[in-house]
């Protein structure tokens, strides 16, 4: 059985940044296992720009952003196995993987989970109707267009206002398709505001909020969709039906972290994120196993994935090179009013450095508002925002000095700002 100091599972943006950070922190036996034939993950099919504004202070396409990290990786001695999929991860950090080069059982002192996420499907939202061809998740359609070079349809409706769907509305339009509508069941968009503007408004594509697809019609290929308005409980309102003649339905109805291996290893999960429960340094409930990127929480911006992965990679290096430093009191963190989750869910103040970054999403669109971090009745920290929306991940940095001493629970909530 071959041994490594660190095995990174996944060679997308999270895995790349984690491996490079671990190498830079002093690890020398590092392996990335990637199931695709090449590194870069989903960025390879994201040929639009808008990546890197935070991390590189310039605007890059997805492949360019991945390329920067792949170039950096080439300067290190990190080993890479592409075309190789991990089938099993055990809690003592044994990794079983398979590829055309062979079937292997490996062992590592530390693991970084960076498997990314997958798209929710029609089954997940239980859309009724026929089951014709022409129904794709937005990411699958994106692969057909941008990697394979084929058009998946001519008249398109997009269900859900997730970012990939919005990007595909523009992409399909530029390739000559007619995008008839984007339909969102919630009263607000789930994508970034910049994508609503640049991908829908700029192309006069209508966005129907509080609407959903209530019937799919077609034998062979999709022929027709029925779209209905929904009430406050997301139930279709009879009499509001609109009919769209179209050959394609793209689904952009959410992303799910791909945590099959995480669950298999027995790592504690957070039902709110569908990712692992992690400490401030991205360590999971199993010491030496770390999680970062979209497998931990679904991000909007790859720049934040990279930052999170660097933290995980450095923490893995610390775990291997300076064992025994992961102890101390533990605070728990969780969502309060109008907040849907927090990452991390646990903080060891002794490990917190100068402070702790907490990531979360709000449940509703706000105007001027405050983010409150409470410990019991006491407000520990307060942050002001002019605008927040569920489609845009928030983060705050709580200075170490403000963290309570001893075991306690921190709750993150939002309130309208006082006038």
């Amino acid at each position, binding site marked *: 059985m071959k041994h490594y100091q660190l095995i990174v599972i996944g060679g997308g943006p999270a895995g790349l940044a984690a491996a490079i950070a671990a190498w830079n922190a002093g690890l020398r036996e590092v392996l990335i296992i990637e199931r695709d034939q090449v590194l870069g993950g989903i960025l390879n099919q994201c040929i639009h720009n808008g990546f890197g504004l935070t991390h590189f202070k310039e605007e890059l396409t997805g492949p360019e952003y991945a390329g920067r990290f792949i170039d950096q990786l080439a300067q290190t001695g990190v080993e890479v196995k592409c075309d190789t999929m991990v089938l099993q991860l055990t809690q003592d950090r044994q990794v079983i993987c398979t590829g055309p080069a062979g079937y292997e*059982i490996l062992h590592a002192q530390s693991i970084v989970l960076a498997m990314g996420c*997958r798209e929710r*499907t029609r089954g997940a939202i239980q859309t*009724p109707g026929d089951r014709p061809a022409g129904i794709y998740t937005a990411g699958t359609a994106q692969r*057909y267009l941008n990697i*394979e070079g*084929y058009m998946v349809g001519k008249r398109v409706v997009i269900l859900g206002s997730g970012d990939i769907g919005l990007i595909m509305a523009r992409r399909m339009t530029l390739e000559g398709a007619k995008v008839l509508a984007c339909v969102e069941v919630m009263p607000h968009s789930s994508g970034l505001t910049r994508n609503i503007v640049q991908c829908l408004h700029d192309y006069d594509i209508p966005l129907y909020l509080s609407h959903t697809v209530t019937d799919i019609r077609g034998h*062979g290929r999709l022929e027709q969709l029925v779209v209905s308005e929904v009430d406050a409980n997301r139930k279709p309102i009879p009499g509001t039906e609109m009919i769209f003649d179209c050959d394609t339905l793209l689904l952009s109805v959410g992303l799910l972290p791909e945590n099959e291996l995480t669950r298999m290893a027995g790592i504690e999960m957070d039902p709110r994120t569908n990712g692992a429960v992690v400490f401030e340094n991205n360590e999971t409930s199993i010491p030496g196993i770390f999680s970062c990127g979209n497998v931990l929480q679904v991000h909007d911006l790859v720049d934040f994935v990279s930052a999170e992965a660097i933290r995980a990679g450095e923490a893995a290096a610390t775990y291997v090179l300076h064992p025994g430093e992961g102890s101390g009191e533990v605070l728990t963190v969780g969502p309060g009013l109008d907040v849907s989750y927090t990452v991390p869910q646990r903080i060891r103040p002794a490990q917190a450095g100068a402070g702790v970054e907490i990531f979360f999403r709000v449940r509703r669109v706000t105007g001027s508002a405050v983010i409150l971090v409470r410990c019991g009745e006491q407000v520990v920290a307060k942050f002001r925002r002019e605008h927040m929306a569920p489609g845009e991940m928030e983060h705050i940095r709580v200075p170490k000095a403000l963290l309570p001493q001893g075991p306690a629970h921190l709750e993150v909530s939002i309130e309208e700002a006082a006038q």
Partner: protein
Amino acid sequence: MKDVAIIGCGVIGAAMAYTLSKYQLDITVLEKHSDVASGTTKANSAIIHAGYDPQPNTLMAKLNVEGNLMAGEIAEKLSVPFRRVGSLVLALSEAELPHIQELYRRGLANGVPGITLLSREETLKKEPNLTDTVCGSLWAPSAGIIDPWEYATAMAETAVVNGVDLRLNTKVESITAQADSFVIHTNRGDVQARYLVSAAGVDAAAVRSMLETPSYQIMPSRGEYYLLDRSEGQVVGSVVFQCPNELGKGVLVSPTVHGNLIVGPNAVPAEGAEDNKVTADGLAFVAAAAKRSVPGLNLGANIRNFAGVRANSDQDAFRIERSERYPHLVDLAGIKSPGLSAAPAIAFYAAKLLLEAGLELVAKEHFVDRREKIRFASLSDEERAALIARDPTYGRVICRCQTITEGEILAALRSPIPPRSINAIKRRTGAGMGRCQGGFCSPRVHELIVRELGIDPLDVCLEDEGSELLVGETKTGGAL
């Protein structure tokens, strides 16, 4: 001139072809779809019923119990996933206890092995996730779960290996009866055969009408289902039925051979084979009914809804008969539930009808009655390592949700009945059946179909012709 023509290659047509391929006969099977097992066979509860349900001393009872036994043998020989997990019929109230007692008596009369009445406690011990209001149950250990389309495909493939001529995309348009034969006119030319077997499912009456007025009507009935993620596959260990009613065997909750949980069906009149949509009302009915058996059912873990159309007739019995006017015509009609369970016994019975009609059944000297299939996911570590060393394509995982390798997909594409569509590959290998529903693997499966079969990427379909996945190249052109 063919000896026998079989119309339809669902599980009944496939079983018929398999059964007759043991004999020295020249056989053609005509299937209108682009793949076998594309009608009722591809969308049903995937259960091999024990046989306590049909009334005693009926042909249905006999064929169900015989078919159940034969299914085990065939699955073993032809490498079809099949597990005898047993079934429970729940009495959800005191008032339903007489019903399961009646089923128990029928089961004994029908010769169903091992059936027992269980108390409330015994029932809950066997299936702890059932409602604690259950009053008792009927346990039938011989009931099983099967992969229905692989069952049909395995029999069809074995028939082809033994010389049967299978013609896909071949729709029967009319039939002319001649003195000693039938001329079957299809969209792909005529076929002449001395004997004719119709296994046309929902189209049975339409096919029979090409020769004579049938004495039955087909009353298609749609059943809608949930298929839940493998995370829910252990919620029950056996097939859990409720007491049957006039709408059918009631809503069941069952594990599948692929490790998922299947929940359904309802029963609503359908307009025809294509009327297989799922409806919000239908799903709501199924959800409410299933929760009577398993209150904690997590329908949030749904990965796919689907519906199938039962080929029911206006009569309670199977309509398996030799025509009086055309003695060389055998009609296998009205194959309702338990048709899947009875399939090989129906075929054996039909072969006897053909024999009575004068067909000579002389056994072949070299009948191939074996089919091997590699399933990477079910191999041990050592077997996997050895397999990949022999053929590296078994190392490359194409469907990550179900762990289906390139080697398995290539093997399917090189099999006796090569699948040509994305869904046909799904039925052959399981690729695309998992929680991402082909989101990741379908472009790669698409590419393998193109590469292996040499067809244009734009011609690859989801299912039959007309369900093409792509409409053209992008402005910079296709790469496949």
